[in-house]
């Protein structure tokens, strides 16, 4: 059987890649995808713990996370599209209205 830390390592690496994407990418949509990566990493840990504890609550929580992720994706994309309509770009370094 595969030991628990294996899954946790995979999840950690996925999370780190998500962080890299969020911090270094220009395109808002890729930042979005990186956020999904991080959510998936967290979900993987949840399911791994749930399975190794013989307890279903972890899976239930993943279910909730997915529903929230869906809501987040819908709202986030709506915001990105309305920004694109106003500024004709989705590059994060060009969206700087709050800068003074």
């Amino acid at each position, binding site marked *: 059987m595969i030991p628990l830390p294996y899954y946790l390592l995979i999840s950690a690496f996925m999370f780190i890649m998500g962080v890299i994407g969020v911090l270094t990418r*220009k395109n808002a949509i890729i930042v979005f995808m990186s956020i999904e990566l991080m959510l998936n990493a967290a979900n993987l840990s949840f399911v791994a713990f749930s399975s190794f504890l*013989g307890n279903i609550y972890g899976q239930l929580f993943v279910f909730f996370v*997915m529903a929230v992720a869906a809501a987040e994706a819908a709202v986030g994309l709506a915001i990105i599209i309305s920004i694109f309509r106003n500024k004709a770009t989705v*590059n994060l370094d060009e969206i700087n209205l709050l800068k003074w």
Partner: protein
Amino acid sequence: MDLYLILFYFFAIITLVSAFFVVTTRNVIYAAFNLMLTLFGVAGFYVLLGADFIAIVQLIVYVGGILILLIFGVMLTNKITDTDIKSGFLNRVPGLLIVGTFAGILIGTLLKSTWRIAAPLPPPVAGLVGIGNLLMTEYTLIFEILGAVLLIALIGAASIARKQSN
């Protein structure tokens, strides 16, 4: 070698390699495609962990819903007939510094802690039935609130994304 271990490494390679491409490729559509592979890999892990219901929900919700939304986003926010949708990087050095520190802390704690469970217990009672029972008894309120959140989010998204008429 154990069949489970081979499958595990197979999914690990798919997941990590495609996740790497998601954050490094310059073409946004390639990123979306690689994200799809990552999501598949994670679904594979769920199956290995005995959570087949969650694995299928992962495919239906993430691959069939969220990622399609993202691809629509890509197509709506670029000159769509242009197949070269490129995107660059910014803040490389400070970003990588922060990530390095964070990764060190995360993986350090992960390897140093002793996980009490060596082998998994028998998998939890039939995933689907268990989750369904919990959703309809203990977690009914949260389930309903989640439905309301989704509805509000979708209405909000539709009203934000709609063209404002003067």
